[in-house]
């Protein structure tokens, strides 16, 4: 796979980008989330050739929350702000829209920055970078294995469903049928996953996981001068932005 500019960056540089975007989002109104961070993340995704999965995942992650928050804010708004739209009993006011935009903007920032991060970062490289700043290898293993086990659990869930199908249980059809088939599969899925966890703990032990030595890594990842520049620029820019926000609030 060809690596784009963002993908090549040191994982902690990208993690710093996510952190800075979140901090900026917290001290800003909706315009920063929707008009700056989201387009910026999309631009980076396009540059790195991951625009399609980025758009699909951001849309998938946000659509339900955004629709619900908009519905609640718009329909429950009792302010006296100007009416934007009115039809029958539906009245949409400016304040309702602004509240909804403000509340969903942080979600938008969170989803777009984190999805961009994982689309352009190898999880194992992220864990290695965390270990390089002396994070416990146990914590990094837990994070890494959790992220990598999720697709395995989906596979296992499919196998359980197929096993149920083989025994004559209806697993396909309308939503009700699918739901009826899905819930009974959760029991075996959870129990087998817990059993797998126990076995994996033993496996790790056999592979020297608890050996009291400094761990090494086959994969080599290093910071480049670009990373250092970007890392400190992000911190400086965020600090400057917060300073400016405080200044504008005070005066």
């Amino acid at each position, binding site marked *: 796979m060809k690596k784009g500019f963002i993908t090549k960056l040191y994982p902690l540089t990208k993690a710093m980008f996510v952190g800075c975007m979140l901090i900026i989002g917290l001290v800003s109104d909706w315009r920063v989330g929707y008009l700056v961070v989201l387009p910026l993340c999309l631009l980076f995704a396009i540059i790195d050739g991951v625009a399609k999965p980025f758009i699909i995942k951001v849309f998938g992650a946000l659509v339900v929350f955004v629709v619900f928050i908009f519905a609640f804010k718009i329909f429950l708004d009792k302010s006296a702000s100007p009416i934007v739209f009115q039809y029958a009993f539906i009245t949409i006011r400016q304040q309702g829209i602004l509240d909804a935009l403000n509340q969903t903007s942080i979600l938008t920032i969170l989803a777009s920055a984190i999805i961009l991060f994982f689309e352009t970062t190898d999880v194992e490289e992220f864990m290695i970078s965390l270990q390089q700043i002396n994070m416990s290898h146990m914590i990094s293993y837990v994070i890494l294995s959790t992220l990598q086990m999720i697709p395995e659990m989906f596979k296992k869930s499919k196998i359980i469903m197929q096993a149920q199908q083989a025994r004559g249980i209806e697993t396909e059809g309308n939503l009700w049928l699918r739901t009826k088939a899905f819930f009974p599969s959760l029991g075996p899925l959870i129990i087998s996953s817990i059993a797998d966890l126990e076995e994996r703990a033993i496996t790790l032990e056999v592979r020297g996981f608890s050996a009291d*030595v400094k761990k090494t890594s086959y994969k080599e990842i290093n910071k480049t001068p670009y990373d250092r520049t970007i890392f400190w620029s992000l911190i400086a820019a965020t600090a400057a932005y917060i300073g400016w926000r405080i200044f504008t609030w005070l005066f």
Partner: protein
Amino acid sequence: MAILELRDVSFKYQLGKETVLENINLSIEKGEFVACIGRNGAGKTTLCSIMRGLIPNFQNGTMTGDVFLNGQNMKELSLGEIAQKVGFVFQNPFIQVSGIKKTVFEEIAYGLENLGVPRDEMIERTNAIITQLKIEYLRDKHPMQLSGGQSQRVALASVLVMDPEILIIDEPTSQLDPQGTEEVFETIHILKQRHKTIILVEHKIDLVSEYADRVILIDQKHILLDGPTSEILTDISLLDHGVSLPQVALLALRVEEETGKKLDRIPSVIEDAVIEFSKLV
């Protein structure tokens, strides 16, 4: 001094009604190749887990007695120290996968990462073991997408690469075809030539008779037979404990029965059988 010694070891699983093993005494010398045989459920895997220190550290139950590794009580050793000295290949290869690596090469190298082996040496040792086990074609495959036989070879490679003094191998060929089985045994044989201590659980008696120095039979919670391979694997009482004799031993018994002539000894390997049968001609 024995490299591994069990003194009066008994074990009962937490949810089990009875003890699985009772008063086990076993002493294994450095460089010995010991095969552990017995019917299913006899306690072979439990014995392996005890020798590796997984019991009582990871599996709940009541254990009495002591296990000594190089003369030192295992209770005094850290898990990391045991991991460096005793390798363990599981019966089920799919659980031996770390779950965090994306290629077989990285999976095999994972144990070396944990032991803090420098990268250059890690690559060298991983490549060597891949070549030795003839699994170059699996090198870039995802460890979660292997067949049973492929997983078994990768599991074996993952432990061998750590170069432990003692290697406990629990049915390493259960999912392999005859050729793969033969290759695994050849690898084990090479390890024996390098003076590694090997403890093998295996049902394929013909291969055990060919390669092992010593055989122990576990049944009814105890070690019932313990001795040189040629002696144990020609003992007809094995059949009463759910274990078959090697094909050549069965053939020899049949020849004795059919011809009415007694052989000097019942052979357990083909070479001995040739000698014994030629005396009859």
